[in-house]
């Protein structure tokens, strides 16, 4: 059994070149948006806009500049499926299409998915979408086919600055911790790791080094499992059903008694 594999993304060295996006699209033969029609979003250099069924990598551009532009910084981050240790998508998939692989990654089996879209609403990171060509839900597979052949995922191999690192989770965490310490020593005290520990979702097999709050990067602060609401919601509904049954039975009995009384008084 191989060790758990994943990505560590150091956003401080991302230059926004989008080589990862292109490599991902090429290797996985993902179609272009709108059949290749070119549209500019107007949002910095981000024309991909979101992760979905045909965008399994998405480089985010965050411009932090004051009005006078005297100071400021760019934040860039190559976003991808987090391959959560406790994956909400896998948990809710009603067809069993989403599986955990021998590399501890999360993969959607296209021949099983029927496009119910439960996984899309369950993913706390908005990663999954319907691929308009295959008409099933799709997302990053962490290049499962390449991993099985002993190769590195296309995106991390293409990354020119090693912002995206691929390896065993154990090695990646060591590498990431060392980088955080290095940045702290250099004066960048805001650096921290997002998803490297098991504080949420049991940990992320694709975790990040960030230098600002998660929301700034479009990430939830404390993502949760969707089933957290199952027991309380079900209990409320069950109690409601019991009350309705009681109401219906008592109401009908009352009406019958009234009718009986009226009939008796008419008879008298």
């Amino acid at each position, binding site marked *: 059994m191989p060790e758990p594999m994943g990505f560590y993304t150091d956003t401080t060295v991302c230059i926004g070149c989008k080589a990862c996006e292109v490599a991902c699209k090429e290797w996985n033969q993902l179609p272009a948006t709108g059949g290749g029609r070119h549209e500019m979003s107007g*949002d*910095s250099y*981000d024309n991909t806009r*979101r*992760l*979905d069924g045909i965008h399994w990598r998405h480089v*985010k*551009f*965050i411009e932090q500049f004051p009005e006078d532009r005297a100071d400021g910084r760019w934040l860039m*981050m190559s976003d991808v499926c987090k391959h959560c240790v406790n994956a*909400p998508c896998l948990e*809710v998939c*009603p*067809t*069993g299409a989403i599986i955990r692989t021998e590399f501890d990654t999360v993969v959607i089996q296209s*021949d*099983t*998915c*029927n*496009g*119910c*879209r*439960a996984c*899309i*609403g*369950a*993913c*706390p*990171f*908005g*990663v999954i979408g*319907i691929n308009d060509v295959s*008409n*099933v*839900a799709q997302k990053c597979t962490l290049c499962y086919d390449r991993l099985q052949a002993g190769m590195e995922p296309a995106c991390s191999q293409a990354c020119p600055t090693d912002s995206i690192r691929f390896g065993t989770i154990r090695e990646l965490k060591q590498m990431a911790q060392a980088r955080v310490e290095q940045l702290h020593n250099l004066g960048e005290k805001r650096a921290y790791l997002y998803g490297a520990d098991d504080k949420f979702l049991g940990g992320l097999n694709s975790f990040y080094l960030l230098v600002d709050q998660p*929301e700034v*990067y*479009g990430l*939830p602060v*404390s*993502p949760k499992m*969707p*089933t957290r*609401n*199952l027991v309380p*919601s079900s209990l*409320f*509904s069950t*109690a*409601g*059903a019991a009350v*309705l*049954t009681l*109401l*219906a*039975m008592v109401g*009908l009995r009352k*009406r*019958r008694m009234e*009718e009986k009384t009226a009939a008796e008084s008419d008879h008298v």
Partner: protein
Amino acid sequence: MSDTFFTASPHWAWWIILYFFIGGIAGTAFFLASVLSLLDRRGASHGSRVSATTRPIARVGYYLAFVGVLLSGFLLTIDLSRPLRFWHMLIENHTGRPMFKLWEPMSTGAWALLFFGLFAFLAALAALSEDRPNIRFLQSPPLRLLRQQAPAAIIAVLGSIFGLYIAGYTGVLLAVTNRPIWADSQLLGLLFLLSAASTGPAALILLGQRRLAADPTSLSWLISFDWIVVILELVVLIVFLISLGSVARVFLNWWGLVLLVGVVGVGILLPLILHPRHGTEDLESCVRIAGFVLVGGFLLRMVVLLSSEQIHVIGSGVTGP
């Protein structure tokens, strides 16, 4: 900002809104028809549990449930991106084994709909056999068996359990996501159940007008049940909005207006104001009230589903209100 704001929309729109509406009506119509069948013996012949007075409206409930469950299955199937793979919900395509996840409402709901469909079919068949005594096939021994006390009671009880499940699980299904509004409260299942319990009798009143005209007691029971349920619905709706906390701000727009005017005004307050005093229920006013309740029930599902739809991650931020 709630963590639910960073998610993507599953785009459950009109087909699902219609399913939630029709499925809820079907489930509670079956339940009410069963309560009438099981508990009301007015005018019943000796040795029979079937009431001669209420049986006609109970039969309408069973027909409504059966047509509703057929429509529900159809709506759910066409909403899939790959409709021909609808059976993957029930059978694992790689192994051929049953596919069932107790912790996933969509999975339990698919099975519940299947079983509810079976009981609704049997109950509708028995009702048809009563309604059409001149059709020979409907008087065959297996169908006559369905009308006997024990089988009819089993069908009524089990079908009611599945019917109420169908009416309420849809809200739980939404709560077991990570989407704004849906996952930000634990009361959506209860709210949808109560809404279904108000639209079910309303649909029965609308579709069973002719039979209810001859059965004022059932009409009185249905409209008073509806009245109490609508009050409960209003209370739960208010608690639901409070439980959303700051997320409730997403209703500060057009959807909030629909919620206020359509759901609360037309669907809840108007029926409460127009509700006839006990003993003075006339069919015409009951039908009018039923119409308002149905409009409110549909709009509630529309607002809950589509108001969440407007919020999603774009670029590095969240769009929406």
